[in-house]
């Protein structure tokens, strides 16, 4: 259970970084940390004690199938990691564009300039 608790701690730290920091690149880093926490949580849920990776080898005894860890969260997290990369690159592109337009990463300065 402590493992789940540490994952939630990591998620909350990412949330704090997202909410509290004025620097928009710091906000992006907070989202990346939350991404890590959720992915790790899903993989930990699928872990089996003494488990092996779900890869079938030649002349493997049939009883090894019982020791496989859960392959379903692994497949979905594989998708999620790659999507996280795409979304992060989009956010960094927005940050670079905002910097070119306003000359700063400070959220409070950027949000004051309206129109």
């Amino acid at each position: 259970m402590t493992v789940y608790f540490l994952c939630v701690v990591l998620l909350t730290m990412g949330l704090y970084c997202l909410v509290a920091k004025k620097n928009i690149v710091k906000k992006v880093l907070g989202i990346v940390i939350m991404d890590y926490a959720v992915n790790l949580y899903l993989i930990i849920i699928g872990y089996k004690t003494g488990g092996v990776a779900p890869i079938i080898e030649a002349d493997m005894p049939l009883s090894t199938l019982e020791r496989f860890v859960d392959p379903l969260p692994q497949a979905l997290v594989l998708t999620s990691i790659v999507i996280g990369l795409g979304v992060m690159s989009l956010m960094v592109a927005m940050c670079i564009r905002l910097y070119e337009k306003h000359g700063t990463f400070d959220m409070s300065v950027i949000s004051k300039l309206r129109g």
Partner: protein
Amino acid sequence: MANIAPQLYALLVFMVIGSIVAIETRNLLSAVISVSAVGFALSVAFLFLGAPDIAITQLVVEVLVLIILIRGTILLDNTAVDTHRDTLAVVTSLIFFGLILGFGAMIFGSRGFPEFGQPVMRVSKVYVQTGLPATYAANIVTAVILDFRAYDTLGEATVLFTSILGALALLRREGKVSREEVVAA
């Protein structure tokens, strides 16, 4: 296979410390590198948890994240932002922390949340049993991605393509030149 809990705890504590450094440091480049250290520790943790495919993907993605984030920060000079402590944000984070823990305990506590090391494999049992005869893929994760749940992968490719298109559109140097300007030039 031995008990992996000590290694997992060590990696998780390392990740938490790396996140604290990344959040609290003033230098943006140090923050980016700390987040990447957290990502590499995550890759090692996946390796311990019996997920080599995820570990490889996480490693590759982490290198790309590092390159993209450094591109976003290193060439720009005015990156320091003087921050002041925001009590509202701290309170919001703590409230959400409590809400997540409370709802988690409420929903899963009574029905028997799976303990660490004892997963509920109701759906995956079928995948493990029929993966090789149905798809001829030795790696069950590959069988799930490319055969049992191939439509999810199609959706993933769509999302990835769209986000890259958006990034390219944002970073494009010049807009479209109209036909008359080309002819005039």
